[in-house]
């Protein structure tokens, strides 16, 4: 029987390195199964298309209602995507294997937050241009500012959603529990995201700095809270 080679034990990985390994694992799993992305994109697309045909909005109406609709589509898509984030670690109790590895709990959480952020961003990359076409809204001149709002809003959505996905993963009715826990918390974030997006789609596009600062603050607060509480969040 061959002997295992001596594998030198180096010191533990840094949080960033460990999170990058978890992120790579999440991306590999998702791009192999396409479980989350396909369902999320199709679901959000159906919402956007259905409302477009139901209301047949004018440009002025689109500017008023479009941002809210867009973020509702993102929220529903996010709920669908974030729930399995930790739930699928239950299958073979792989979360135990991750928790046993000599890495910080925050690295596990951060890897998953980054993965969910990338998945949500990819879904948004497909949705936003289609939304602009269906609702007669021009993205010209506001693309970078819109990306900034989308990044800050999506980050808040994924941080909160991933954290609560970890909390609800052990629960029997986790599909019901996650939206119940997350939606009230996300309401201020959604208001800020909708207001920021609406100001960009206005006839005179402008970036509302107050709402933007609120989005950034929300992200910082929840990211810090997840860092402080990660051991408890992932504990059995």
């Amino acid at each position, binding site marked *: *029987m061959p002997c295992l*080679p001596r*594998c030198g034990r180096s010191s533990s990985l840094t949080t960033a390195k460990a999170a990058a390994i978890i992120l790579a694992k999440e991306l590999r799993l998702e791009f192999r199964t396409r479980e989350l992305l396909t369902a999320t994109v199709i679901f959000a697309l159906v919402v956007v298309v259905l409302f477009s045909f139901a209301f047949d909005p004018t440009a002025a109406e689109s500017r008023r209602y479009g941002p809210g609709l867009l973020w509702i589509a993102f929220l529903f898509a996010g709920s669908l995507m974030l729930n399995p984030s930790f739930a699928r670690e239950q299958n*073979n109790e792989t979360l*135990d294997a991750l928790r*046993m590895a*000599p890495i910080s709990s925050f690295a596990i959480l951060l890897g998953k937050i980054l993965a969910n952020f990338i998945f949500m961003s990819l879904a948004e990359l497909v949705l936003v241009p289609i939304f602009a076409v269906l609702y007669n809204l021009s993205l010209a001149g506001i693309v970078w500012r819109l990306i900034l709002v989308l990044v800050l809003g999506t980050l808040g959505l994924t941080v909160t959603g991933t954290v609560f996905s970890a909390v609800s993963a052990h629960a029997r009715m986790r599909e019901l529990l996650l939206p119940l826990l997350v939606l009230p918390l996300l309401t201020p974030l959604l208001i800020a995201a909708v207001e920021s997006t609406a100001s960009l789609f206005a006839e005179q596009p402008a970036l509302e700095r107050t709402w933007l600062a609120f989005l950034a603050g929300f992200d910082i607060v929840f990211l810090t809270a997840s860092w402080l509480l990660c*051991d408890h969040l992932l504990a*059995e």
Partner: protein
Amino acid sequence: MPASIGVSFHNVEKRFGSLAALRGVSLEIRAGEFVALLGPNGAGKTTLLRMAALLMNPTRGTVQFTNGPAVVSGRVRAQAIVLRPKQLIGLVGHSTLLYDELTAAENLTLFARLYALEKIADTVATALDDCGLATRAGSLVRTFSRGMRQRLAIARALLHRPSVMLLDEPAAGLDRHGLAWFSARLARLKADGCTVLMSTHARNESLDLATRAVALAGGRVDNDSGSAGDPRALLAALRTEQ
């Protein structure tokens, strides 16, 4: 040889709501001991192993690792302290702790990277060869039989050469060939001075390697052959009971 470390359970109690899974268990497992953990279903074997794996905190009492690079409490709160013994612990649990949608090689590579091992490709290739899955290195784990998954699960747990090996019914699903491989692997662990804590039924052939037998019942230590004692009498008695 891996650093020899022992495990001490001091008056450990674990409650799940009103259910007491462990009721004041005290055990001093010396470095290099091979302990067979026996007992009926619900005796508390898995709970004890999960605490030793730092996956669960005791409701009362402490779990400590001794003679290693650090003596630490089983409380998982102090991350900086806990990280070091994590590198020294290996666990084969009820589940495989493997990702079905990753290949055998990808699973081992993932954990080799998380344990910051060196020469990852060589380590993974040797581990796959050792458990007889080298030809299936590129196959998704979901395509494996139960026995193949279990062999890979054992290979994963051994990948970082742990000093404390925790085994919860590790022979489940293994065929005759797999059992022979597993017994040989356990013998090598014992020879290397690894501390082994194995929960299994009394008829498991690997128990011949045990240097100590501990029987749990109702969350308490019911019988213990002791560190200096001979486990054979207790194992024989338990085999007769079954």
